[in-house]
Each structure stands twice: as structure tokens, then as C-alpha cells.
């Protein structure tokens, strides 16, 4: 299940997202966040990603928002650039 999600997100990042240019108000972007969240938290990660996307709305000011690792509570920085 996690694999399907990450495949879909990676497909989006590779083929769809570049066509629309950067649009996410956060860093790392919603898609990278979702990738890391689902990798680290599984189903809970899906909920986290959905919440992140809802937060990424026209009234938000964005900001830096990493997924925190389960054990060390350190920000996961993979995939962000």
C-alpha cells in the first residue's frame, strides 16, 4: 500500500508537477511531505498529508514544515530540495 502511494506521488512529482511550476506554500512541498509522512507513519501519514494539503490554502502564509521522525523527533529532510 505504501508502495502504491509513493509510486503515485513520485509519478506526480516527475511528470505532472513540473508542468504547473512551483505552487506549494510550504517547504518541503506537500508532495515531498506526503512521501515522507507515509513512509514514516503509514496510514496516519495519509491523514497528516491530507491535513497538510488543507493547510496549504490561499489564506495560509506557508512556512517550513518537515515530517518529524517517529523515534528521534528530528525533521526528515530526504527528498527535499
Amino acid at each position, binding site marked *: 500500500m505504501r508502495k502504491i502511494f509513493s509510486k503515485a506521488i513520485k509519478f506526480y512529482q516527475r*511528470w*505532472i508537477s*513540473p*508542468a*504547473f*511550476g*512551483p*505552487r*506549494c*506554500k*510550504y*517547504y*518541503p*512541498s*506537500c508532495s515531498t511531505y506526503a512521501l515522507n509522512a507515509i513512509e514514516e507513519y503509514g496510514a496516519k501519514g495519509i491523514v497528516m498529508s491530507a491535513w497538510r*494539503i*488543507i493547510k*496549504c*490554502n*490561499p489564506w*495560509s*502564509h*506557508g*512556512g*517550513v514544515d518537515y515530517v518529524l521522525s517517529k523515534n528521534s523527533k528530528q525533521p526528515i*529532510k530526504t527528498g*527535499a*530540495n
Partner: protein
Amino acid sequence: MGSILNPLYYAVSWVMVTFHSFFGFIFGKDGHESIKWSLSIIGLVIVLRIILIPLFVKQIKSQRALTALQPHMKEIQKKYKDDRQKQSEEMMKLYKEHKTNPLASCFPILAQAPIFFALFTVLNGIARDVPHGFLKGDLLNAAQKAEFFGANLSSTFLSSGTNGQTKLVTIALIVFMSATTFTTQRQLMVKGMPKMDSSNNMMLQQQKIMLYVFPVIFAVTGVNFPVGVLIYWSTTNLWTFGQQFYVIKRNPTPGSPAYEELIKKRAIKNSETGELPSMDGSAAGDVNPDQDDETNQQKQRQQPSKKKKKKKK
């Protein structure tokens, strides 16, 4: 799923039915179902996009507010030029600090998906004789006969069998969708964005995707969609193009090629009329930001007069 989307079925069908009866005044209460229903779908797009205009204006405003942040941004780029991650982090912090974020945000695109899905279901309902929302009874029967250039609104490429007209119209709409998406993006890349060092690379990649990947995506999904949905999709693409064209012409992003063109034009015109050239960040336009932000503290802004606006066309 169906029950969650039920209000949306009602909303979508209500807008369509309302437009349908409105066009009834123009084309007559009976007959002309084809044009009435086709225009109803287009009307739905227009209503939706008008509702979304404030969001668009808001985004343009925050993009313009960036002019004031330009020095900070340059500093960050210089300071972290070997560390893109840190650079992006600092940039986002800067936006947040100044409560302005030029990026469009992710939610609106996803929010459109349910509406699109609702329209898809409502139109599919016409094909399969299933009423949704307000589209039932006589209206449903009338809608079933509606055509767009001879293709049934609820028919799809794959379900149309030997109906060549539907296939033709579907293909034409898919080509149109690909073309508008491509032109819109190209225009934004070439004229609408501030020049960046990395933009050339990005642009090539983007154009490749727009040219090859998008038509394929449109084609694969498009053959499964009813003609009515394709009309919706094409119209919304056309709207996006027009909206962007307007902004790039009338109120371009500071630093973009279109902006420089506009400044040049104004300088020429000003020297003709003997006015002082206004080189401030307020390239005038109807969606101009209210100038209460930091942009103004640095430079005196000249109020653009009506006369000026007209000539800029």
C-alpha cells in the same frame, strides 16, 4: 461516496438547469436543446471561475508585495548559494515573517476535483438515465438529446461505437485542451516570470512535459469522459489562458519580461506627453494591489489615471 457528494450534485445540476432555463428565454422554451445544454456547461465553468477570481487576485497581490522583499531574497540566494535546501527554507521563513506568500497553494486544485467528479457523475447520469439533483424528469429527457457539434453530450469516445462524429469531436476537444494548456504555460514561462538562472533548464523540461505528457494524459482520460465534461475542461482551460493573458498584459510580475515591456511602453508614452516617467513597482492594472504594504514606503507611487490605462491596450 455518493451521499457525500450529493450536495454537489444538486449544486452542479442547479447551475446547469438555471442556465438552461435562462437560455430558454433566448432560444425559445422548446427546441434548441443542444445549444442550451452546451451553453449551460460553459455557464457552469464561468460561474465557478468567477467565484475563484478573489483567490487569483489575492495571489497576484502577494506576488506584487514581493518587490519589497527583493533585497532580502537576493541576500538569501547569495548566502546559501551552495545549499538549495537551506535557501528554500530561509525563503519560506522570509515569506512567513512578512505574511506574504507568492505561491498559489495546493488545496484549490484538489478542491476542484470533487466538482469535476460531480459534473462527471451528473453527465454520466444523463447517459444512463439516472437522475441527479435537479436534473430529472423532462429535463433529463431533453438533456439526453442534446448534442455538441453532432456529438451527444453524454457520449464518450469509447462508448460511441461507430459514431464517427463523437470520435471527431472528442479528438478535437482533446487537441484543444492540450493546446491551451501548453500555450498558457509557455506564455507564463516566457513572459510572465522573473528571469532566473535555472529557468532555462526548467522551461525546457516543462515544455517537453507539456508537449508530450499532457496530450497523452488528456487523451487517455479524455476517451473515457463524456463530451460534456470535455467541454467543461476545455472552457476552463480557455478561461485560465485568458485570465493569465490579461494579467501579463496589464499587471505583470515585477522583473518579468512583460513587466519590462510595459515599463518601456510607459516611458515612451510619458516622454511623448511630457510627464515624468514612473518607474515604480505599480504597473497599473485593474487587479492592482491595494498599496498599503511595504512596497509603498520605499517609493512614491504615481496614481495611474484612466487615460493611461486605456492607451496601454
